[in-house]
């Protein structure tokens, strides 16, 4: 085998625990429990190995990473390993002292999630009270002088309110706003019917973005992550499987992509058993879809294969049962009809905005208690969790 180039980035999913319960969460349906999480020392080892391997950037994510009490130690360990640390947070729990401690430990930047510019709608989407905490977190981050990125996951329930989201980003002093369409993995798959936007919404959103880009220039970086199902275009898989980045899950499982835990037979390695370098270079999981030799037709001869890497393996598996097929989102895929039918059914279906939430200690506001219509899978689970 040719030598494998080292990775640049590490997504460290420090915990799956989270005070929010976003309907679009792409973390697995079965979350890793707190007792199975890596310890402080184990994470420090992961960062050191990552640095030695060539990683220069880490996203400290989750779940909600602030729920790790040892977060300052983890930031310090990553910083000592030469990694640029970015916290990816809901903002819930990011008070002044907490932030100061993290900055002192070497935190470089923060990415804050937002669900909607209207507090009530935002909290309905997040399934938890959180808006005021986010607003405060944004202010503190700015005051600390750290670069602030906002990220919003886009779906049917907020796509018509992009103007307000962009104004919010400006008002909160963000440097960057990432507008990323929902990826239907993990929990989000259950809520696909409630989340999938209409083609009309997407079109309007695109022109909204174009208008704001012109107006804002370089003042605010607007990043648009396209809706692959509606665009009939495969999304570029993380810059390529096993090419740019790796994900370490809360229990130490190492994955080429955050959603890949769902793939059958992947047999992902764990940092408790192997060194990161060996995992990156030699493991079966990281070599499964690396490069182009695994590609089927029509990707094999397609000019776009260096750009989108044949699309998403997890989606290919979810929609065809075979992770090695061309991503059915792609209009050239032999299975594209699956996506066409799905979009047709869901977009034409009733417009209920109701999500299934993960079970949580909190009572959901009344409006959340409807059962999403048309969910092909998981309907029984939904009824169990939400009540009819």
């Amino acid at each position, binding site marked *: 085998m040719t030598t494998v180039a*080292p990775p640049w980035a590490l997504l460290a999913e420090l915990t799956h625990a989270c005070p929010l319960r976003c309907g679009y969460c792409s973390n697995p349906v079965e979350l890793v429990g707190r007792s199975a999480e890596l310890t402080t020392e184990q994470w420090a080892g992961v960062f050191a190995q990552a640095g030695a391997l*060539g990683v*220069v950037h880490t996203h400290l994510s989750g779940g909600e990473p602030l729920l790790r009490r040892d977060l300052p130690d983890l930031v310090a360990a990553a910083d000592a390993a*030469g990694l640029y640390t970015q916290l990816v947070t809901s903002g819930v729990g990011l008070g002044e002292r907490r932030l100061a401690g993290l900055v002192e430990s070497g935190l*470089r930047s923060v990415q804050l999630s937002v669900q909607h510019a209207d507090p009530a709608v935002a909290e309905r989407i997040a399934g938890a009270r959180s808006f005021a905490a986010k607003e405060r977190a944004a202010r503190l981050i700015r005051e600390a002088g*750290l670069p*602030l*990125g906002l990220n919003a996951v886009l779906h049917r329930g907020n796509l018509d309110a992009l103007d307000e989201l962009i104004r919010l980003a400006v008002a909160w002093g963000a*440097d960057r706003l990432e507008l990323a369409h929902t990826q239907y993995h993990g929990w989000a798959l259950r809520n696909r019917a409630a989340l999938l936007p209409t083609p009309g919404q997407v079109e309007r959103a695109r022109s909204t973005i174009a208008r704001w880009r012109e107006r804002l220039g*370089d003042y605010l970086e607007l990043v648009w992550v396209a809706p692959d199902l509606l665009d009939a275009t495969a999304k570029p898989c993380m810059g390529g499987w096993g090419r740019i980045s790796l994900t370490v899950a809360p229990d130490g499982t190492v994955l080429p992509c955050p959603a890949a835990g769902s793939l059958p037979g992947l047999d992902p390695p764990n940092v408790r058993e192997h060194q990161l370098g060996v995992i990156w270079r030699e493991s079966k999981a990281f070599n499964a879809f690396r490069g182009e030799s695994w590609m089927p037709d029509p990707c094999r001869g397609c000019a776009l294969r260096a750009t989108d890497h044949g699309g998403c393996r997890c989606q290919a598996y979810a929609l065809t049962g075979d992770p090695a097929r061309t991503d059915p989102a792609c209009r050239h895929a032999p299975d594209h009809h699956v996506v066409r039918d799905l979009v047709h059914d869901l977009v034409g279906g009733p417009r209920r905005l109701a999500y299934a939430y993960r079970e949580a200690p909190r009572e959901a506001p009344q409006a959340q208690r409807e059962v999403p219509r048309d969910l092909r899978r998981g309907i029984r689970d939904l009824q169990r969790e939400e009540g009819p």
Partner: protein
Amino acid sequence: MTSLRPAARQNAAGWAPALVPNVTAWRPALARGVLPRHDPVRDADLLLLPERVVVLHGRAGAVLARCDGSRTVAGIVAELSAEYPGAPVAAEVPDFLAGLRKEGWLT
């Protein structure tokens, strides 16, 4: 305010003309959140940013190492010319720095 949005970025269309009267006074410094680093694994000079890694080629690392807010552009050019005699420092470095400023990586 973090310098990921330095003044030059706030008026994208008009930054160049506005820069001219100021250029001699400008003492370039890396923006907050921009971290220079030597990468021993790839033997490369890098700039690390919140969502980005910039690989610096040639002597770009040596140029940026002098962007500490204490030297003017002319000062940087003079130092580099002395260190790399014969290199087209005066012709290239000011444009290079202005480009990075436009990106928001220098203030």
